[in-house]
């Protein structure tokens, strides 16, 4: 039997070999040469970390105890890989497109980059992963103690073994897991080492299987007979548990942090999934192929005495196959270490990104954000997290004391991380899923799972507060994990699974339906659900062939052909390439991006280059930046639009005012022209006759008298005209002062007729009145009203062309007003001239030559407006009719 020291030496050599593989892979990857790293087989082998030491040893144990139930653990992933290939592909595409670093990042990113959700999922993952790591440490330690004889340094201390294993794994993970903060978070060295371990694992179990079938039994036929006789085939069949466990295992492959790490984060080529879809199930088939034969032979050899979990190791060992046993040991060691390494790595990413870094940023918020090397902090946080995870695992292992309860915790851990599933699937498939829904679902599932399974298990392991757990908190029976909701659970795992997943899903859906997603969630939701519309398939590590051509075409479209050609030729010359097409080196791309940014803005330029480079698809941040820029442009353009509308309005107003001014100016010119005419006409007569009179010799007396009278009349006409003009100007500018008082309408009429009659003594105009109706007391400016009446009467005197002219004045009292109508019996005003009568200087053709400047009616109308009444012309067939309306307030005194 190999000594403990020898075994340690073998382990050290093995680990050193893994270091070598990892180191070489990193080196080759950096040089871009590691072709086998880009092989889908390597990807598939890395997925085999699903088969941990727990399944490596435990599957045989499980088969020995419960028959074929162990198969469910392999059946679940197989079904997912074959039946849900589309889902895996979508997850991988999203992971690449969104630069997802972990399952927590995936959930948080989908639900609006929520920090709280990320922390919740991280916490869940820590709780689910810690016992799992403990399980690995236990299995390694156990296998050590089984395998190794006494050490030269005394009896091997199993606790010591565990701590050394933990320390070694920490070191390995730190070295190959945190070499750099890669954007893509891939670790070629680590993946290579894991692939090698996967091969060792599979080889070892197949070797034991072959030994058992052909070495112990006499071939397959004999083996089948032995199985028939073995208690393994008598094991019972629990359909519900099978279904539950299969679903759980299928969920685990999607949700376990370490599986997400290898499946999505470490994926370098989407097409690898197609190979893994058949190769991974095949791997699982091979690794489970000889489980039953080994269990059967183990049971035959040891009966119920031995530990069936160690049959894989003890069977070859006790049958004298030391070399085979050593291989088995290394296989188990590989299964344990690969799982721990990837789990620690995945957890460290989550812990540092979602818990440590946010806290650190919070604490150093007041410092200059530019100071300090964030990369160093982030790497430090990851290294501490790796150490922390392994320490937690070790601590849990010490606390549990390696009890049998550890076996069950594997499934419990599965169910814990499975709580992420509704939010994960919902996030990928349903745009309506919201952060609130996800938080409610995960939170509730987490609480139920912890209360029903995790806490009782820990309590059982550590012997803590069993009374509370038995009776339920505060003695509430239905809250007790033993009898949840009063159910007498025969299978606590299944009960907890149905309850936690059921309520989780229900709350997730309800929460999503009842809450409103933030804009960020909407955007991310669309990016996730419609990932194929938003991203291109991402192949390989290098840019595609012809990338430079694509870049050139894009540059030409933006910079113009000449500028683009110059840029590319210069870059090609600098690279020493003669064909004018430069290698798309980072330097060149940066330069190109800067050039493009000058034309289309930084965010757009980055997005465009990224589209073509392909290695990094357009991130949401890029898109948001583009949206920001667009929004700014739109804002600017809407400001411009508003300004231009304003300008247009101002221009319209100016045009309007200008038109008004032009019109006024025209009116002013016309008015001045009219005044000139009205003044010059009497002046002409006055000048002509006065010149005649000045010469005077040949004139007889009568002519002299006549000419003098004409001069006199024309000067009176001029005076009247000037009076009227001044009157009109005063009235029009509202500067007239009204002297209102009580007056009798008939008095005002008497005055007017008298004044007009005095002017027209020679006139023949008769005036018909009805004095009775005129007895109306009014409140008005009697002088102004009389002026209006005089004007109307003298108009009739001047223009009425009847044989016996008669002016009829009639008064009517109406509710609220008094109307005084002036109607003559002449031929009236021709229809086409009626519209003009109130215009200044307007005179009907028939009134030509009559004295008056044509301002009378304009003045009268102004006066009546001032008095609050009105003056209108009433169209009529017989004679001229004017109606003077006195307003209601004119009656106040009545």
């Amino acid at each position, binding site marked *: 039997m190999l000594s403990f020291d020898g075994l340690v030496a073998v382990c050290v050599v093995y680990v050193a070999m893994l270091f070598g593989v990892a180191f070489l892979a990193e080196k080759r990857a950096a040089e871009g040469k590691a072709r086998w790293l880009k092989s889908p087989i390597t990807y598939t082998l890395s997925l085999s970390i699903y088969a941990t030491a727990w399944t490596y040893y435990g599957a045989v144990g499980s088969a020995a105890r419960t028959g074929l139930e162990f198969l469910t653990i392999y059946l679940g992933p197989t079904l997912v890989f074959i039946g849900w290939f589309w889902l895996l592909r979508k997850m991988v595409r999203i992971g690449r497109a969104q630069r997802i670093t972990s399952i927590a990042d995936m959930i948080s990113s989908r639900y609006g980059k929520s920090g709280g959700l990320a922390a919740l999922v991280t916490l869940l993952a820590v709780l689910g992963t810690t016992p799992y790591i403990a399980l690995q440490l236990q299995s390694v330690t156990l296998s050590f103690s089984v395998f190794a004889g006494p050490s030269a340094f005394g009896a091997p201390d199993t606790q010591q073994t565990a701590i050394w294993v933990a320390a070694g794994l920490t070191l390995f993970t730190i070295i190959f897991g945190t070499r750099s903060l890669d954007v893509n978070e891939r670790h070629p060295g680590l993946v290579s080492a894991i692939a090698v371990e996967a091969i060792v694992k599979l080889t070892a179990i197949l070797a034991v299987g072959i030994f058992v079938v052909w070495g112990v039994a006499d071939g397959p036929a004999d083996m089948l007979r032995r199985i028939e006789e073995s208690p393994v085939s008598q094991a019972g069949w629990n359909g519900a548990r099978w279904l539950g466990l299969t679903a759980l295992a299928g969920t685990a492959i999607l949700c376990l942090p370490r599986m997400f790490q290898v499946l999505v984060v470490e994926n370098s080529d989407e097409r690898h999934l197609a190979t893994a879809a058949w190769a991974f199930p095949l791997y699982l088939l091979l690794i489970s192929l000889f489980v039953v034969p080994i269990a059967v032979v183990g049971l035959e050899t040891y009966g119920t005495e031995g530990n069936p979990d160690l049959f894989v190791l003890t069977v070859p060992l006790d049958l004298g196959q030391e070399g085979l046993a050593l291989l088995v040991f290394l296989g188990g060691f590989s299964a344990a270490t690969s799982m721990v390494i990837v789990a620690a790595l995945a957890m460290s990413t989550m812990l540092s990104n979602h818990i440590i870094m946010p806290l650190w940023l919070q604490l150093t918020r007041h410092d200059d954000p530019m100071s300090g090397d964030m990369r160093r902090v982030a790497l430090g946080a990851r290294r501490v997290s790796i150490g922390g995870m392994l320490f937690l695992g070790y601590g849990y292992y010490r606390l549990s004391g390696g009890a049998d309860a550890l076996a069950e915790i594997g499934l419990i851990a599965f169910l814990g991380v499975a709580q992420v599933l509704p939010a994960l699937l919902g996030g990928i498939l349903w745009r309506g899923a919201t952060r609130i829904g996800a938080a409610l679902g995960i939170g509730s599932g987490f609480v139920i799972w912890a209360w029903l399974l995790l806490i009782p298990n820990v309590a059982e392991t550590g012997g803590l507060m069993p009374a509370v757990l038995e009776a339920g908190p505060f003695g509430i029976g239905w809250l007790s994990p033993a009898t949840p909701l009063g159910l007498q659970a025969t299978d606590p795992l299944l009960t907890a699974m149905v309850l936690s997943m059921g309520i989780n899903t229900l709350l997730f859906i309800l929460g999503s339906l009842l809450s409103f997603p933030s804009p960020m969630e909407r955007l991310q939701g669309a990016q996730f659900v419609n990932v194929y519309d938003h991203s291109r398939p991402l192949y390989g590590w290098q840019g595609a062939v012809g990338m430079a051509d694509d870049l050139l075409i894009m540059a030409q479209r933006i910079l113009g052909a000449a500028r683009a050609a110059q840029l590319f030729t210069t870059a090609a010359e600098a690279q020493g390439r003669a064909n004018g097409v430069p290698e798309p080196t980072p330097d060149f791309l940066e330069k190109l991006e800067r050039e493009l940014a000058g034309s289309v803005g930084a965010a757009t330029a980055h997005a465009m280059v990224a589209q073509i480079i392909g290695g990094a698809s357009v991130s949401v941040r890029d898109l948001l930046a583009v949206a920001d820029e667009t929004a700014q442009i739109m804002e600017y353009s809407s400001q411009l639009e508003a300004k231009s509308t304003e300008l247009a309005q101002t221009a319209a107003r100016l045009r309007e005012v200008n038109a008004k001014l032009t019109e006024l100016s025209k009116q002013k010119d016309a008015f001045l*022209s009219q005044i*000139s*005419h*009205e003044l*010059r*006409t*009497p*002046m*002409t*007569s*006055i*000048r*002509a*006759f006065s*010149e*005649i009179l000045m010469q005077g010799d*040949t004139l007889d007396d009568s002519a002299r008298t006549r000419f003098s009278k*004409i001069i006199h*009349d*024309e000067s009176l006409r001029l005076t009247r005209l000037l009076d009227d003009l001044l009157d009109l100007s005063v009235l029009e500018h509202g500067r007239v002062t009204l002297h209102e008082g009580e007056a009798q309408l008939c008095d005002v009429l008497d005055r007017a007729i008298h004044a007009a009659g005095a002017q027209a003594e020679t006139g023949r105009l008769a005036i018909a009145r009805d004095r009775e109706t005129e007895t109306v007391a009014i409140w008005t400016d009697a002088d102004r009203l009389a002026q209006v009446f005089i004007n109307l009467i003298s108009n009739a005197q001047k223009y009425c062309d009847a044989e016996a002219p008669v002016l009829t004045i009639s008064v009517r009292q109406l509710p609220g007003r008094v109307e005084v109508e002036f109607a003559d019996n002449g031929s009236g005003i021709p229809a086409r001239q009626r519209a003009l009568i109130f215009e200044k200087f307007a005179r009907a*053709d028939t009134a*030509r*030559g009559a004295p008056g400047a044509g301002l009378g009616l304009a003045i009268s109308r102004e006066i009546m407006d001032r008095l609050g009444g009105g003056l209108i012309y009433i169209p009529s067939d017989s004679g001229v009719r004017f109606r003077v309306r006195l307003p209601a307030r004119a009656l106040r005194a009545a």
Partner: protein
Amino acid sequence: MGGRILLIEDEGNILEAIGFILSRAGWEVQGHGNGATALEAVVRTAPDLVVLDVMLPGRSGLEILRDLRGQPGTASLPVLMLTAKGQSKDRETALELGADAYLTKPFSNAELLETVTRLAEARAGTGPG
């Protein structure tokens, strides 16, 4: 100096004044006060010279002038335009339409006589008589 002058003017006093002045100077003066019938008056009286006011009821003096110039019988008839508006634009319009002279009211009697005499002499010198 003699001859027949048709005076087309709507202001009675001005008609009387100009008529008196020109008659005393030896002209036979015919007066007419309506724009609408002015053309017929020209044809009827066949004057040697027309004194034409711009502001006339019925028809503007400028329109009458244009019609006179458009008819072969009156195309070269001397026309003296009178206006009370006194704007240079009116004066230009009148001269463009073919007025031979243009006086702005009020004018001196001497100015009127002088202008009428000048036009009559010019016609006697060039025209067929």
